[in-house]
């Protein structure tokens, strides 16, 4: 039964959505949000939406309580609210709202005006998917369709006259039994590979990594809403590159020199060896402080991008995070050398507040 409250509840959710949207910039630059992520839901603390009334200032008012305790004993308030009377005055707490990651991505998309991504033209590629929607006469008992079986038995008993209204006992025999079974359906395949690359050389501090972490979270959230199958892989590099897991990616701290080309090489290798470009939409995100070992290595990077990577990926994004140690040359080189490439995007991220714009730059092209 549809509840009447649904309308009000939906309206409330809509208001919440509006709140999240208008404060999105604030939420985007908060790392704590990422910690609140469950499998499909994310819990967002928003200030309680309240209707103002004339009321007493909090904490100015004591109250009456009941129980043991000496004078001066602190008491636990069950509510953040200090009224303490028998009242039902709403407290002032943060409201925890659960929204799905999908909805969050939607909000992100609307607020940043991100275009929907047009996957590379592989609509022909199809995979078969099994869904349990068919009903068969044979099958394992565990998949017996109770309702259908009952109906068949009932039909049979009525037609054969075995049905007794006074004693409506229905006994299914073998012929009545119906079982759930699968149907194979072709589904258009639409997969995406994201490779996050990060410079973990000595000059990348915790603050820089946090920026990277936040930004990759939002990028993943968005791309996940655009592709059904999303694979995320992580590469870290200093003078050499290696693939790591998510946990390592954010917490690893190496020191030493920086050879960006090592990461690009590895990225290229992963694509070549494991992913069929006919089937995969590939995204590369690289974050660094822009301090590369030598001009020679930077040239290598440019060549690699130009000759190999840019032909293979939907999008290659380079985000340069401001660091006190980095020289920040790399981004300029890329911009100078590869200005013609329309699937290379560069972005400068000076602090957390820039994340918002950086995401927009990266994903604003709809690639």
């Amino acid at each position, binding site marked *: 039964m549809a509840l009447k409250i649904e309308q009000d509840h939906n309206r409330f959710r809509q208001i919440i959505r509006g709140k999240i949207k208008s404060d999105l910039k604030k939420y985007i630059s908060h790392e704590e949000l990422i910690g609140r992520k469950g499998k499909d839901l994310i819990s967002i603390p928003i200030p309680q939406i309240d209707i103002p009334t004339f009321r007493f200032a909090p904490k100015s008012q004591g*109250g009456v309580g009941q129980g043991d305790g000496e004078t001066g004993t602190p008491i636990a308030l069950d509510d953040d609210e200090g009224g303490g009377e028998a009242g039902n005055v709403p407290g002032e707490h943060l409201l925890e709202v659960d929204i799905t990651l999908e909805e969050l991505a939607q909000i992100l998309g609307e607020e940043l005006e991100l275009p929907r991504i047009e996957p590379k033209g592989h609509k022909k590629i199809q995979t078969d998917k099994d869904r349990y929607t068919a009903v068969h006469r044979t099958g394992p008992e565990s998949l017996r369709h109770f309702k259908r079986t009952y109906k068949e038995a009932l039909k049979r008993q009525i037609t054969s006259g075995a049905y007794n209204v006074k004693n409506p006992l229905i006994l299914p025999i073998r012929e009545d039994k119906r079982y759930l079974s699968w149907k194979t359906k072709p589904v258009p395949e639409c997969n995406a590979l994201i490779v996050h690359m990060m410079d973990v050389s000595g000059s990348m501090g915790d603050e820089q990594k946090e920026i990277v972490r936040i930004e990759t979270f939002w990028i993943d959230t968005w791309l996940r809403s655009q592709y059904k199958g999303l694979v995320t892989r992580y590469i870290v590099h200093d003078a050499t590159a290696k693939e790591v897991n998510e946990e390592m990616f954010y917490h690893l701290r190496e020191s030493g020199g920086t050879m960006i080309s090592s990461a690009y090489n590895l990225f290229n290798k992963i694509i070549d060896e494991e992913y069929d470009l006919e089937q995969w939409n590939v995204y590369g995100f690289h974050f660094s402080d822009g301090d590369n070992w030598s001009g020679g290595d930077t040239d290598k990077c440019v060549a690699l991008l130009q000759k190999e990577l840019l032909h293979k990926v939907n999008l290659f994004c380079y985000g340069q995070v401001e660091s006190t140690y980095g020289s920040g040359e790399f981004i300029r080189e890329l911009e100078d050398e590869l200005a013609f490439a329309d699937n290379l995007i560069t972005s400068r991220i000076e602090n957390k507040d820039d994340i918002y714009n950086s995401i927009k730059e990266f994903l604003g092209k709809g690639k």
Partner: protein
Amino acid sequence: MNLPADLERIRQEIEGFAREYELDFYETIFEILDFKQLNEVASFMGFPNRFPHWRFGMEYERLSKSYAYGLHKIYEMVINNDPCYAYLLQCNNPVDQKIVMAHVYGHCDFFKNNFWFSKTNRKMMDEMANHATKVRKYIDKFGYSEVESFIDTCLSIDDLIDRHAPFIKRSNRKETCSLKEIEDEQAVKKIRSKDYMEEYINPPDFMELQQRKIEEDRLKKRAFPEEPDKDILLFLIENAPLENWQREILALIREESYYFAPQGQTKIMNEGWATYWHSKIMTERAVRDSELIDYADHHSGTVAIQSSRINPYKLGLELFKDIEDRWNKGKFGKDYDECNSIEEKKNWDKKLGLGREKIFEVRRVHNDVTFVDTFMTEEFCQEQKLFVYKYNPDQEAYVISNRDFKTVKQQLLFSLTNFGQPFIFVRESNYENRGELYLYHRHEGIDLRLDYSQETLKNIQRIWSRPVYLETVVEGRGKILKYDGEKHSERTL
């Protein structure tokens, strides 16, 4: 919907016991709901239907969530109406249902017989539904956000009523127009014509001109402020330059506020009374041996004490029991009061047996304030371990500050008076001869929350349309807050 046979049997049994004890109630209809439906009804404050507003949705979200996390469970809900409606949670076990029914009959008796409820609308169920229909019609006509934002404004001041008037005043506001009239007065009258002649008989630009004229007339028609009033809502309804539909909405919200007011005024008594009777009916009549543990478990949950707030079920129950005991033993009057021997007082028993009669009288005439004021004794206060707590900034916590009887009683009475809300009056409606509204906060030792006050002032200004003032006291100094429609300002007195 009829109750299933087993519950109906229980209901008849419990109703029989309630009548045996001479409880007197309107017919009571029980409905069984699942927890979703119960949360819905609870969000609507007991009614199956309210005007559309997101605040009910917010409450629903909160209730659903805390139910899902096992933080609370609503057992019972009952509406003051003739007939009374009460809801039972489907998944409760039969003992719980018994307790709830007994409890509900206590409430129903209270609704029917307590003086403070005597002026409430006993057909509120219908009235609420009418309000809902009315607001929905306005939404269709004026748009969702327009109506919603006006309701937001109204709800911000819905507690500014005169709840302490001995008899609740019914608004004698001017008859407002029906929706039909509003429609008539807003649409330009067309002359009937054939399709192909329409353009010539009702030329569009002329029609538009007429429409604008009507709009202008409508703006001019707005009433002008007259006399101040303590009932700020009524004052605004009668005097603020509102559109008819806005006036209607403000009026219906005021009506609902008055309907709910006595429930706020008698929370301790009402719950105490219902708890008294469910425990009486259950322990003396209805409970079976096998149900005893479940009953005890449920009942102890109902009357559990929390250090931080008064549990109205517990306090009310204990006070009623104390009164019954005192009047049974004759522990009242001159002789008792003047007796100085603690020992003698303790064992005082004149075997008067007036207890039952007394508590029925108390439930008829008192509200929480007079109830506590008249019957809370020093002995009771000690026995119940009541204390006052205050915020201690050094400890950054609320701490027990006092167990002194007078202080406890005073604090309790203070928090009950005006339902723990500040007293606000309209002092002048033509302040400085400029049609500006001057409100006054009767300061009783506690400051207002300023940010909320400013926002509320803003909402009143929206209704009043001219600048609005609020005189109050902030940290010991008189202050006047002002909102002129664009910005807030304040001035020290």
